[in-house]
């Protein structure tokens, strides 16, 4: 009995991210869940992996960028308005470009 559990633990180990991402084929998913129902170490392991993903999703860097400088903002706004103008010019000339 113990040996069977061990083999299955290793087998499901590589499928766990796809399990968490709901990306496993139904049959593999069923097999995995059957294993989890009888293996508390794997349940704890899945919880720790799920916790890791959750920490990544909610990660906020302690470092944040400083305020955007005025010249940098102007640079971005210029680029944006130029691109808009180019688009409008193209639309006027019938979309053919030049």
């Amino acid at each position, binding site marked *: 009995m113990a040996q069977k559990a061990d083999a299955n633990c290793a087998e499901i180990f590589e499928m766990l991210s796809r399990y968490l991402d709901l990306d496993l084929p139904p049959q593999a998913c069923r097999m995995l869940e059957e294993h989890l129902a009888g293996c508390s170490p794997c349940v704890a392991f899945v919880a*720790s*992996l799920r916790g890791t993903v959750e*920490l990544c999703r909610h990660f906020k860097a302690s470092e944040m960028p400083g305020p955007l400088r005025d010249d940098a903002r102007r640079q971005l706004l210029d680029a944006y308005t130029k691109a808009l103008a180019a*688009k409008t010019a193209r639309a006027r000339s019938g979309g053919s470009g030049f």
Partner: protein
Amino acid sequence: MDRQHEIELARRLIAGDMQPFEEFVEHFRASIFQYSYLTCRQREDAEDIAQETLLKAFESFDQLREPERIRPWIFRIAKNACLMRRRKSIFAPERELSLDELMPERNGDGAHMQLQIADWSNLPDAPLLRKELGEVLADAVAELPDKYRSVILLRDMQELSTAETAEILEIGEDTVKTRLHRARLALRRKLDEKLRSEGTANAAEDGKN
């Protein structure tokens, strides 16, 4: 900010409505900064990359036809900007992470797997611990070999899809999945070590009282 709102801002900007400009810039500037800061761990570089990326994005804004693509589009530019100015591997040498080395430690004779795992169940109620774990996480991400780090940054931290990540990194979707799993396992291990050391510290304190 959710993806839908972000797309709405892009849609309006594409249509020539300049009102969401500030919000759009602030939002993406923070995301790109976080992405590049975790890659290079240099504030100035991360700020430069954020500016460079936004500038490139706005310069070719007239080519963006589908606002739905705004996030992968921006992060493709950010990825290239990071590559361009990357200082030769300050941190991790390029190497493979094998599943074997990421298996949790076992106790016993191998007949049955006794895992050494911390208790992750009360994480949500411990803001201070979460903050500390955030620092462990940032260091652990920086230490990952490039090809694993780029996947976890895009998939789990920027929440791009498998397909979008594959496109940005120019690799197959199966490769994204394999690398993502290994990256998560590597981060899990670092976080678990931290939690276990906290657990031991608590237990030691309890013993004293």
